[in-house]
């Protein structure tokens, strides 16, 4: 017997509304299978399960809003006897009288507050810090066009972006670096490579850039991961959040997982799939919850340099401007027009310093000079 609980679909997501079950009692489910669609109030997200088993009970009904961590369904592992008795109802949240009063004043749901008092009881301080988190909620950028009440979505998304970016600018001491990079070799390589591919399999420069970022990050753990509880948590894997602007406004930044480990073809496929699903509003929980760095490519807009704002709790963001021919000094001292891009870095000064950022951009440039190795 095990329980399937509502996962956090974003660093600070508090609750979600079940839209749809993709399974029913008696169904066998497998690790990685999408079993439910949950509305995080900003987007419909397909939620995967991470264990095998047989669904014995669907606890949450579609339409219900439940806190992160609440039991949504119960499962039986293979070979375990069916369970017939009802599990005990969860105990009332232990909270001090003062905490309950404060929670009412601040309109905080005390059941969702983690207690730090005696026996884990919720105290006034816990309520106040929970309220402070709600006041500056995390980025809830996902939008789903298929979800009802889409009219409000634009405003909600704007509110969510406002909150996330306000938090970023309030909490994260950014530093910014930028560097023009010659894309002569990358462009030539890409042209040759695409010439021998069917149109449907052609690569975008954005994919090369993405891979180059992930490869370069190998030596820069201080630019990858999260800043939580006053400390940097480096991530070994690079899950790159890709900023995708949506037609109705706003943007999302779901992750492509393990970018460093995947081939360009796989990345191209992943990127196409991600953009399509982002715009269709069917992103997956795992894609939303764990980008370790974000890459923002504003090349289509004609800008020269992106001054990117970090998406908390990440610690860095890489921007790419428009690929443009610019005068570029040659080794013989002459000038020649070469396709170039300005790569920029916004990084968290609590975790890294400008020197490290500069080395990273240099490494990124070096990688882009060897497109065949990407």
């Amino acid at each position, binding site marked *: 017997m095990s329980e399937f609980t509502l996962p956090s679909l974003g660093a600070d997501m508090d609750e979600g509304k079940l839209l749809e079950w993709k399974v029913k009692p008696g169904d066998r489910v497998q690790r990685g299978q999408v079993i439910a669609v949950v509305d995080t109030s900003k987007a419909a997200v397909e939620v995967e399960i991470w264990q095998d088993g047989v669904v014995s009970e669907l606890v949450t009904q579609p339409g219900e809003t439940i806190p992160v961590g609440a039991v949504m369904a119960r499962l039986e592992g293979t070979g375990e006897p069916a369970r017939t008795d009802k599990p005990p109802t969860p105990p009332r949240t232990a909270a*001090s*009288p*003062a*905490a*309950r*009063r404060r929670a009412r004043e601040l309109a905080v749901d005390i059941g969702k507050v983690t*207690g*730090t*008092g*005696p*026996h*884990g*009881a919720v*105290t*006034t*301080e816990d309520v106040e810090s929970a309220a402070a988190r709600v006041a500056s909620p995390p980025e809830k950028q996902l939008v789903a066009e298929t979800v009802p009440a889409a009219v409000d979505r634009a405003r909600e998304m704007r509110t969510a972006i406002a909150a996330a970016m306000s938090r970023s600018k309030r909490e994260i001491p950014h530093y910014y670096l930028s560097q023009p990079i010659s894309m002569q070799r990358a462009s030539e390589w890409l042209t040759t490579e695409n010439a021998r591919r069917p149109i449907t399999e052609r690569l975008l420069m954005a994919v090369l850039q993405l891979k180059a970022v992930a490869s370069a990050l190998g030596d820069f753990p201080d630019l990858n991961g999260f800043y939580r509880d006053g400390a940097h948590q480096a991530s070994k894997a690079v899950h790159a959040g890709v900023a995708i602007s949506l037609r109705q406004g706003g943007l999302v930044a779901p992750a492509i997982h393990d970018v460093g480990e995947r081939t360009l073809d796989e990345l191209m496929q992943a990127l196409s799939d991600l953009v399509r699903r982002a715009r269709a509003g069917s992103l997956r929980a795992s894609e939303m919850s764990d980008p370790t760095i974000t890459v923002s490519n504003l090349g289509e807009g004609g800008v020269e340099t992106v001054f990117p704002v970090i998406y908390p709790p990440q610690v860095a963001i890489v921007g790419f401007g428009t690929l443009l021919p610019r005068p570029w000094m040659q080794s013989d001292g002459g000038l020649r027009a070469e396709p170039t891009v300005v790569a920029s870095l916004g990084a968290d000064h609590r975790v890294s310093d400008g020197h490290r950022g500069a080395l990273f951009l240099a490494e990124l440039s070096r990688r882009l000079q060897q497109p065949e190795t990407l």
Partner: protein
Amino acid sequence: MTITYREALRQGLYNAFDSDERVFLMGEDVGRYGGTYAASKGMLEKYGPERVRDTPLSELAFVGAGIGAALGGMRPIVEVMTVNFSMLALDQIVNTAAMLRHMSGGQFSVPVVIRTSTGAGRQLAAQHSNTLEAWFAHVPGLKVVAAATIDDAHGMIRAALADSNPVIIFEYPALFEVKGEISRPVVDITSARVLREGHRVTLVTYGACLYKTLQAAEEVDGEVIDLRVLRPLDMEPVLASVRKTRRAVVIDEGWRSGSLAAEVMARIMEQAFYDLDAPLARVCREEVPMPYPKHLEEAALPQPAKIVAAVKGLFA
């Protein structure tokens, strides 16, 4: 000028005698011996046997005589050597002193002041180590005060004599060598006092535990309140402090069951429930007759370490 608690008591008695000729002192060994704790030393010589009267060993008789004198217009101070012997006078104190005003329809008041020493900590074993303030604080018609500070040891007697009700002043032999200056020559017997400001927890106490509580408060950023008046309780400073700290521990040298600590906790629950962030806690005497051996006596009493531990229990 720095004086001892004992000297403060003595000066208070002298002041009382000088300020009102109706004031006299009676009790066991208060005259020729100068008082069991030397609080009335020299008074017989100064004020004479009319005003400083040694009594026979009968608490019931001489407390009753004091009540009679008060009814007759005098301002008697009756010294009951220790609270352990006050049990012999309970009928006079409870059934007579406390009730005559009510039973006479307000025609008679009983302005008697009973001084008695109380508390443990001096290896006097079970029968001479009681802390029974709560018994008296239970009785309507009595005022009960606990002198824990130099100011109160000195000043409470005057305030008690000025009151038309029977007042019992508890004095603490465990504190007799505490030194300090008289900072307030005149004190009231109506209010509790904050003796140390703090933020994390309210520590409510009275009497002998005050200094242990102050010591513990240093460690836990406690706000220390000396109740001073055990009946009628002045809860306002306690409630105000609890509203600030949201946590409280009551430290009481008496036994836990039916204790003053229990009463204070109940009132906090009644009046400040929604301000609490943790259950109330108390540190009391262990519920055993006081052992004679020093280490066991210490183990049976509230101590700073126990207070600190109780406070820490209010935090995860």
